[in-house]
């Protein structure tokens, strides 16, 4: 019995691929991801992109909801401070993000599960590198079992 379980676990571990939901702002990070694509920069295909108007649009509920529905990690990316299309959307968001990350970490959710960064429209290479890093970290952590809603 014990052996069967181990075999099953090994099989599912092999089949498991990290699922990362990335919320990218329309003006910088989404264009950065686009640039990575048109420049044919290779990055792991484990990321699902959701385009949002601004990183200031991010409601913490989006991120919690993604984790609840089976994402192994979430990533939020916006314009660099000072470059926001809406002048200060990302600056106001930055405070929210700092507190949210602390809160989730305190509750026991690993910091790698919820990540934040800035990627500009010209940083295709940076976007690819960040995705590669996030996917690698999540692969090491294993599937998300916290907060996931099981029907």
């Amino acid at each position, binding site marked *: 019995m014990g052996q069967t379980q181990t075999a099953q676990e090994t099989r599912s571990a092999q089949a498991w691929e990290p699922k990362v939901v990335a919320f990218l702002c329309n003006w910088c990070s989404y264009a950065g991801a686009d640039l990575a694509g048109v420049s044919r920069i290779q990055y792991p295909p484990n990321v699902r992109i959701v385009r949002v108007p601004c990183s200031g649009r991010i409601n913490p*509920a989006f991120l919690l909801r993604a984790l*609840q529905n089976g994402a192994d990690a979430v990533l939020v990316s916006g314009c660099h401070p000072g470059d926001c299309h809406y002048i200060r959307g990302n600056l106001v968001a930055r*405070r*929210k993000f700092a*507190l949210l990350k602390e809160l989730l*970490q*305190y509750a026991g959710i690993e910091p790698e599960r919820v990540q934040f960064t800035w990627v500009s429209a010209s940083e295709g290479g940076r976007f690819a590198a960040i995705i590669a890093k996030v996917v690698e970290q999540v692969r090491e952590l294993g599937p998300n079992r916290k907060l996931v809603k099981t029907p």
Partner: protein
Amino acid sequence: MMTSHPIEMRLRETAEALLRDRKVNLFLGYEKAPLPFRTAPLFITAAEEVERLVWNPFCTLNLAVYLPRLFAISAGARKAKAPPPLPTVGMVVKGCDARSVAVLIQEHQAPREKLVLVGVACQGMVDRRKAERALDAHEALGAGEDMQGNVHVVAEDGTEIILPREEIITDACLECRSPTPSIHDMLLGAPVEAKDTGAARRRTSEFESKPFDGRWAHFQEALSKCIRCNACRAACPMCYCKDCLLDQTRPRWVGAGADISDVTFYHLTRAFHLAGRCTGCGACARACPMGIDTRLLMRKLSLEVEALYGYRPGEMIDATPPLSAFSMDDSQAFLTEP
């Protein structure tokens, strides 16, 4: 410790004068409740009723929770050419109530000029669960206060028991950093200094010393008791949203049941919405019928807000709330770099 009796007398006199001189339309306070260790909220509009007002170690409720509703303007009234005038409300405030009122004023939920705040420096209010535990096998029939401010209990078999007040005040009182009201129009009794300003920090560090999985396990175990009655939200003076995210059905952010994932979502979201706003009054924890330490997350967030943005809700009425503002050099050490 001192007995609350002289304050009760002065409170009645003050309320009577305010109502008699029409300085307030309504006075909010506490009245005797039928069960020991409790008081009930009291709303009086006539000077003759002030005898019902009490002040004792059981005035735990945070009366600020009623203010947004008292000052709410209905959609119909807003459209009317001459909207009905807002009431002037007098209320008795402890340190925590005053902090909550201050945040409500900042958030435009209560106009300062329509409030008459009768402040009382607070010596800590009794947690009825702690008191009941301290009585062991005995059951209290009645509870009062002795001359030293300690709690005097008459048990079911006639035994009289004295419970030292320090041992049975609420956790929020033990962590309170401003027992003397931060805003008030008059102050009854002498100001009180905070006893232990590091209590919240110690509790938080203790929890933080556990590994991630240990913290998650503790958190989940605590929340597994939650029945989603929403009492914590109802008791919270800061939870006044008319259309709460947690009640919305389009989209439905969170399931209505007691599924552990939904319960976790509820508590994380509620905590986050109180970041930089929670005044640590402990109303949520006292309202919880399951005895969950609902302040576990708020405690951490409050400390974090203070460390990052130097802000303590309710104590800095002229400062901009930290989540409504930003600075170009806010910390961004949490960001992922390639």
